[in-house]
């Protein structure tokens, strides 16, 4: 038995801004549950599509009522894979995200298709589908309901985090090209993250940003 969910949303950014922001989503104020992020595979195909695999570690939050039924040694960290294909010719991106740990307890698969918003070419449409299932004997339905509720609230966080990063990238410098602004913001964001995490103020002074 599988719970199915789908929705369509949009981000107020052009497709190239959104695709660039996609790689700079973490960290953001809504992603405290995301502990680590790594690219573990990347390839540009002969027809110029970018294939990537991102490995994420997230905190694993089970509701108290479920904890009784889960093995006591069950990890508090969950591993998630996100595979993506970016097509800069079609201006589309398809992502598939699923958990590779705790899968028998609950499995969540999410597929997103990003494309230029047909009604407003300055915006980007995200069509999102999810399949939530559980094999936990006797509890699968309750777990699926919990999983669906949690997924919906995590979609809200995802979109807020994305909007936050996009807004930072869009900035207030209309004379620059989009890409230059994005690149500059990317550098600033990377720099801020570096300083914050390690307090390497002296290192920051050595780097030069045009």
């Amino acid at each position: 038995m599988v719970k199915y969910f789908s929705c369509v949303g949009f981000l107020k950014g052009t497709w190239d801004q959104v695709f660039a922001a996609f790689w700079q989503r973490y960290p953001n104020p809504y992603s405290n549950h995301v502990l680590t992020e790594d690219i573990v595979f990347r390839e540009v195909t002969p027809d110029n599509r970018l294939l990537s695999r991102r490995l994420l570690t997230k905190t694993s939050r089970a509701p108290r009522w479920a904890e009784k039924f889960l093995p006591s040694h069950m990890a508090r960290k969950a591993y998630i894979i996100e595979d993506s294909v970016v097509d800069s010719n079609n201006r589309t991106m398809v992502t598939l995200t699923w958990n590779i740990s705790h899968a028998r307890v609950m499995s969540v698969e999410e597929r997103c298709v990003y494309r230029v918003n047909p009604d407003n070419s300055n915006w980007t449409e995200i069509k999102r589908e999810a399949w939530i299932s559980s094999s936990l004997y006797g509890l699968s339905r309750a777990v699926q309901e919990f999983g669906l509720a949690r997924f919906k609230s995590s979609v809200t966080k995802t979109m807020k985090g994305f909007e936050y990063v996009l807004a930072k990238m869009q900035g207030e410098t209309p004379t620059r090209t989009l890409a230059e602004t994005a690149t500059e913001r990317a550098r600033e964001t990377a720099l801020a993250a570096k300083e914050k995490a390690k307090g390497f103020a002296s290192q920051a002074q050595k780097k030069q940003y045009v």
Partner: protein
Amino acid sequence: MNSVGEGCTELKREYDQCFNRWFAEKFLKGERSGDPCTELFKQYQTCVQKAIKEKDIPIDGVEFMGPNKEKPGS
């Protein structure tokens, strides 16, 4: 953002900076110039793949877009 390999975060950040620049300035514009980040990527991957093995993270043999099969909507 930290890498799953504690010692790999710096390598990851250097690679990410290179990638983000190439992605916005070349790839999204359809320019098929070579990827300038391959060296940085190699160093980063050596580190992170080792950490993944050490932590027993089960990503080996997982097919790209693996679960992307036809599924019933409801």
